[in-house]
């Protein structure tokens, strides 16, 4: 019987980043588990409030958790931000009895924090195992130098998230290696892309995301892999300026890890949502002979 894992898509994956979501589901099926979307869910709020007194802001994620608990004892997410918000909220509810009471009061529930919040990468690493993942690979991404962009929310703060070492994480690289790609280490992989400043401070975002991109490219990356729709957005958008400013810079595809996952385990190339990317991955795939076609 295939393992069923309760899954929280979140608002972005349900809209702009649909490709992220669909590929994850399909890949799961191919590897041997099923992402079962929660019957009842709402937006998590997309920010974990940094001020401890702001409990109201925790009610949205708490509601997600409380509902999810009714469907099982784990919940999986794909988006780094959802993951961060849900995992930290869950910790607050679990560890702080007083706050738990208040939050439950807001949302009229009795949730106790007993859910375990997992990122899809964690499911691959801990429940499936990268060795098994490797066996499922039908279309190895041989020769692709892929940079793994963690950003902030997947790693910090370590005490609350703890998915991997916050300064020298490897989970992403190990996944890419399992898929046959060559992971590229680069210093900015854990530095911020500029996040929500995209709304009103594009200068800063272009600078930060630009740093990430150049640092990756300088280290030989031909592809950037990420797990956050906002990172994906910022990294793509900021390249326009790089193209203008850096002679010879032509734009690098920025994709979700689930897209390359789907690619590697042999999903139909047309279902992976690559057409949505501003800088297409296709030439690279052709060049490396992973997908037949013109360079």
């Amino acid at each position, binding site marked *: 019987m295939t393992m069923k894992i309760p899954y929280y898509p*979140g*608002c*972005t994956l349900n*809209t*702009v*980043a649909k490709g992220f979501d669909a590929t994850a589901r399909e890949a799961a099926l191919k590897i041997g588990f099923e992402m079962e979307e929660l019957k009842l869910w709402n*937006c998590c*709020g*997309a*920010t974990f*409030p*940094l*001020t*401890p*007194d*702001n409990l109201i*802001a925790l009610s949205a994620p708490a509601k997600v958790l409380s509902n999810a608990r009714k469907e099982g004892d784990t919940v999986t997410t794909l*988006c780094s*931000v*959802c993951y961060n918000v849900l995992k930290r909220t869950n910790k607050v509810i679990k560890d702080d009895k007083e706050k738990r009471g208040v939050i439950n009061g807001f949302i009229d529930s009795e949730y106790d924090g007993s859910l375990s919040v997992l990122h899809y990468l964690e499911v691959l690493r801990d429940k499936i195992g990268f060795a098994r993942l490797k066996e499922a690979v039908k279309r190895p991404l041989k020769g692709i130098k892929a940079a793994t962009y963690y950003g*902030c929310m997947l790693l*910090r*703060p*370590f005490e609350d998230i703890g998915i991997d070492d*916050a300064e020298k994480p490897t989970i992403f690289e190990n996944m890419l290696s399992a898929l046959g790609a060559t992971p590229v280490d680069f210093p900015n992989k854990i*530095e*911020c892309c*500029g*996040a*929500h*400043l*995209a*709304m*009103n*401070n594009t*200068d*800063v975002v272009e*600078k*930060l995301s630009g740093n990430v991109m150049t640092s990756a490219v300088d280290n030989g990356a031909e592809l950037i892999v990420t797990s956050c*729709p*906002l990172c*994906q*957005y910022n990294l793509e958008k900021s390249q326009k300026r790089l193209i203008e400013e850096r002679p010879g810079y032509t734009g690098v595809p920025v994709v979700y890890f689930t897209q390359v996952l789907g690619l590697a385990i042999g999903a139909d190339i047309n279902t992976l949502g690559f057409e949505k990317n501003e800088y297409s991955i296709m030439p690279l795939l052709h060049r490396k002979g992973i997908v037949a076609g013109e360079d």
Partner: protein
Amino acid sequence: MKIKLAKEDIESSKIQLIERVSGEEMRRCYQCGKCSAGCPVSFAMELPPSQVMRFLQLGRVDEVMKANSMWTCVGCLQCYARCPQGVSVAAVLEALRQIVLRKGTDHERIKDVPFPFMKSAPQQAIVCGFRKFVS
């Protein structure tokens, strides 16, 4: 700049409010500068994170409120992750934002947000941005 100091400044009610909202104690910061060293937007801040902390230690809330630092912080938590004292400047900056926003003063008007962004950006960016900038 010349600062005149008195106990009333250092322990003013404004500082106490910031401490309460942020959950951080200003005097825990020993001014090592590691947060400023690693903050990705330090370059764009009028007061880098460690100076925000220092001004608040001195009770100079107004200087900090005037500076763009709180609106420039991206909440990446790098300051907190590396602070040897376990201080979260991120929380302090968020507290400052909250103090402004809770008064009902928006930092960003929705109609000023560029349309292409609203159209193409991921939902979470919009939600998050509103949370940080709008009351």
